[in-house]
């Protein structure tokens, strides 16, 4: 049997579609880890990004430190954290959040920076408080770039969350790590295919959200590409 046939056979086994080791549950775990990691990253990235984008302060520091963060190998960080925090969810969630902060932060501060200063001045001239300026003017206008940052952050986490399986938690990485351990290539490939499909679906959702937000930020932008 070819690898392709074996993989198709792997997908068609009933055991793959129910229970704690089935695809639906593993998929739910994977999405759950991704959501937790992105939420944890947002706790840091959103306030920091708004501050940097709004004031323009610390910009260089942010660029430098997020660049350095991006260079951290997630698997190494995961192992280090697992030794400190023990086996469980906290180590992989933190490691993935670290991966997630740079694109999220960059999306937010560059989105805010890209807002025309004249628009911000006009908002202030109308008597808006700084909080109102951020919430009602800068954020909506920056939204396409912020969603772009979120999109790239989420996709990186979906792809990388597979490493969490190295230290005993679930998710789609289990198929890849366990399959490798017993040389079950069909299982490895099957797990990878599910990750790819998940990534593509989520990416398509974000692409739609980005177009929609661009429309809100500037109603002249079409929500769909028009074909003449």
């Amino acid at each position, binding site marked *: 049997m070819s690898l392709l046939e074996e993989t198709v056979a792997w997908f068609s086994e009933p055991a793959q579609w129910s229970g704690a080791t089935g695809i639906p549950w593993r998929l739910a775990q994977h999405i759950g880890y991704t959501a937790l990691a992105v939420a944890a990253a947002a706790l840091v990235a959103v306030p920091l990004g708004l501050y940097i984008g709004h004031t323009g302060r610390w910009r260089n520091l942010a660029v430098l430190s997020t660049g350095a963060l991006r260079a951290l190998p997630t698997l190494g960080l995961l192992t280090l954290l*697992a030794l400190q925090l023990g086996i469980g969810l906290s180590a992989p969630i933190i490691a993935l959040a670290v991966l997630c902060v740079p694109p999220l932060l960059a999306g937010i501060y560059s989105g805010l920076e890209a807002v025309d200063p004249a628009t911000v001045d006009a908002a202030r001239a109308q008597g808006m408080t700084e909080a109102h300026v951020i919430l009602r003017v800068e954020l909506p206008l920056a939204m396409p770039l912020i969603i772009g940052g979120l999109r790239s952050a989420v996709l990186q986490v979906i792809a990388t969350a597979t490493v969490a399986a190295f230290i005993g938690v679930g998710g789609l990485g289990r198929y890849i790590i366990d399959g490798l351990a017993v040389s079950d290539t069909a299982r490895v490939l099957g797990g990878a295919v599910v990750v790819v499909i998940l990534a593509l679906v989520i990416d398509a959702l974000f692409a739609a959200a980005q177009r929609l937000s661009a429309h809100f930020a500037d109603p002249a932008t079409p929500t769909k590409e028009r074909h003449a």
Partner: protein
Amino acid sequence: MSIKRLATVSAAALLVLSACSDPDDAGQESDDAAQESAGTIGIGSADFPESQIIAEIYAHALEAEDFQVERNFQIGAREVYMPALENAEIDLMPEYTGNLLSYLDPETTATSAEDIEAEIPQALPEGLEVLDTAEAQNKDSLNVTEEFAAQNDLESIGDLAELEQLSLAANPEFAERAYGIPGMEEVYGITDVDFTPISDGGGPATLQALLDGTVDVADIYTTTPSIEENDLVTLEDPEDMIAAQHVVPVVRAEAMDEQARSILNEVSAALTTEALTQMNARNSGDEVEEPATIAQDWLEENDLG
């Protein structure tokens, strides 16, 4: 000017080098030919430190008796070095009995040291043989903390069946292999194991999970220094659920004369699990000594070098 000078110097250097290398090459070839008949022994090793340490022990022991050896270390997986042995690219490899047999005969059900040793000679390809096995063995072992062993009166794997709840950390393959979860149920009647797969081969993360109480039992290789360093209790395996993995030299029969064989057999006679564990400890942690030095020191301590 300086560039021109540099070029001249390099050209001269190249000339000297090539002049040197030519006769050397020729010499090497005739040397090779001479050694082939006099028996240069090509020694391989797998790509993990312990295999390299054992290979260095073989190499130093043979060199001490004026054998010519050639080191081809860190070859990698069995799928690579076993064919290399068959093709006479190397003549000697340190091996582990259980893994060697299951590579040669994937269908084997032998797990005891005796059964495995009895089956290996028939399973080996023609021209290859194993010499004496050492007492030293590096196999999976189930370990608990001293405290947990005392609390639950644990000595052997079978005693785990008495526990109401049992959690265990090991490499992911433990969930599916005969020496793992299926074997625990079949051989010792242990069911409902809460399994945490950690992919570090009984390394620091597995140890951490055991020490902080995340799991009750951890699968750690027998020659890992952390077992002794943390006073872990290795559970006995009277039913041989876990296949024996004694260190054994696999050799190309033609390449080994009587003297070489007896040197290697003397090494095997002296090599214990404890010695191997201590040598591994020197290769890791604070010391990180070179395999060659570790091997040399051990041979001297045992009057073999």
